[in-house]
């Protein structure tokens, strides 16, 4: 049975999107291979085209690039960065990231909607990074987003699925791939996200901060596949707090 991830008409086997920028470029290839990823993000501000240590030079062929607009503080800047990314040949995908807060790096949902609308009009395949709010997700869908990327926890925090219940609302209500981006700290959390039905998981810091980066990439791959399989299989009922009483409370009824 084929179980493909479809974003903006493009099909992917892998449900693991790799974030880059936090581990050394020379291991990019090994990480991508071990992770089995087909899509990797890159910060355009790191693209030193024609210069030293250009991240684009390290991306293996066949990888779909997901340039992000990091550094943008408002919609207008995000739009300009996205256009620049397309100009230098990064393709039509763009992860909209609008942040004007340097402490927690929380995305600005309002500006993100505006940027998404504009970029979708310009033919980009827009994947907005957002704080999981159902109303905002609906607006993003209306604005032409190709997928929604809610954060699990503050970026770089490795705190896991703090926003799980709110991400679940998006999974249930939004008819687009929901991709958890930011905060996932360990493979078990990636697995947990997949189990609730998100379409894919993005991770960077969790892998970059591991002792063996390439091996952790593989661990994530397996966890994501496992979580996906569990979702497709349909999770069994989980009994909380206590087992089911063997003598029923309603056994006294005589009809």
């Amino acid at each position, binding site marked *: 049975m084929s179980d493909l991830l479809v974003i903006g008409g493009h099909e992917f086997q892998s449900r693991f999107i790799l974030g880059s920028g936090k581990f050394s470029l020379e291991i990019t290839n090994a990480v991508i291979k071990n992770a089995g990823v087909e899509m990797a993000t890159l910060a355009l501000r790191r693209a030193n085209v024609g210069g030293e240590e250009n991240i684009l030079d390290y991306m293996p062929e066949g990888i779909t690039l997901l340039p992000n607009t990091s550094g943008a503080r408002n919609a207008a800047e995000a739009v300009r960065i996205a256009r620049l990314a397309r100009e230098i040949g990064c393709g039509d995908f763009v992860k909209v990231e609008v942040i004007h807060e340097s402490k927690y790096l929380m995305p600005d949902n309002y500006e993100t909607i505006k940027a998404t609308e504009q970029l979708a009009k310009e033919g980009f395949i827009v994947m907005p990074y957002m704080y999981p709010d159902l109303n905002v997700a609906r607006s993003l869908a209306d604005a032409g987003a190709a997928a929604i990327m809610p954060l699990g926890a503050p970026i770089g925090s490795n705190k896991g699925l703090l926003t799980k219940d709110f991400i679940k609302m998006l999974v249930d209500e939004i008819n687009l791939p929901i991709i958890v981006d930011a905060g996932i700290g360990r493979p078990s959390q990636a697995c947990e996200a997949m189990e609730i039905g998100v379409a894919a998981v993005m991770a*960077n810091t969790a892998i970059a901060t591991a002792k063996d980066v390439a091996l952790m990439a593989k661990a994530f791959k397996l966890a994501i596949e496992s979580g996906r399989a569990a979702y497709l299989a349909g999770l069994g009922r989980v009994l909380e707090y206590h087992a089911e009483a063997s003598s029923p409370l309603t056994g006294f009824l005589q009809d």
Partner: protein
Amino acid sequence: MVKENNMDFMRYMEDMEQIDSVIMEEVLEQVKHFHYSAYTENDVRYVLAKDEINSEDFQVLLSPAAQPFLEQMARKATDETRKHFGTSVCLFTPLYIANYCENYCVYCGFNCHNKIQRGKLSLEEIEQEMQKISETGLQEILLLTGESRNMSDVAYIGEAVKLAAKYFSTVGIEIYPLNSEEYKYLHECGADFVSVYQETYHPEKYGQVHLSGHKRVFPYRFYSQERALLGGMRGVAFGALLGLDDFRKDAFATGLHAYLTQKKFPHAEISFSLPRLRPYINSEETNPNDVHETQLLQVMLAYRLFMPFAGITISTRERAGFRDHVIGMCATKISAGVKVSVGGHDEEAKGDEQFEIQDPRNVDEVHKAIAGRGLQPVYTDYIRV
């Protein structure tokens, strides 16, 4: 005989913009109540076990009691640096375009009474220097002048910034404090980052070592970062000249100044520099002994733990062995191919150095040192939009 300025160092001069802010009062008040000798080993252990470091914890980390815990602080700091910056280490170089100065700062080699060779690059010379620097692969430049509004005015600096924006993706300035309108102008020319160092946050000491010139005005200098942000700059750097006064208090004030500024301007990118006093031409005997590498590292680690998202720059005032070890642990940006004379990248220098550098390595050598530690040299991390 040097004529001292007996002007009140807390009073603004004419033409100096006054903004609406109370951060200075708050910093000075808190520093007054920072009694670092009151903290104990137990306080340090408690703080090191915490996830988030508040301003009182920051005081603990700066105290003498924390000094024996440097190893633990270094481990915690390395984790934080890794979480927020990954393995990235940004490279840049400073370019001194002029060293004329109208201030009399008793500790500085550029001070207006020190007999050194003064110089100022013409725009052609600036461009030649920039070409030479950009050939090394660098994409980030920091333009510096001495503090002379007459010899290196804002229009001149603006032209230099415009040239820099042609060659580099990131342009910072380290010049005399400006009004917000002037910062706005330089931002429009292409500069995005501003460094102004308060030197010391102890007002009386500040008055004693800044005997004359615009720099004598403590509050105008203090609010430079806020004016720069009001002028549209993206990032601001803070620093005290460690060793000038009580370095623990100055480090606390610096951190708090940065913290409160970020709170007021949440989008501001914050960074720290940690210059410590160094000997300069005609003053070889200046050798402040209280800030050794141990203390310097303690301050760097405390900054990292207090503001894990802030950048920390390590300059060539420190030796290669020190610099190579603090990148990845707490420092996130390192200079390379540094000349602290006026010009000197392309042709012979036109003016003397501000201080003696301890790490003369070129860009290639610093690049190799970064990569050799398993870290990623980053040449560009910024898009001007």
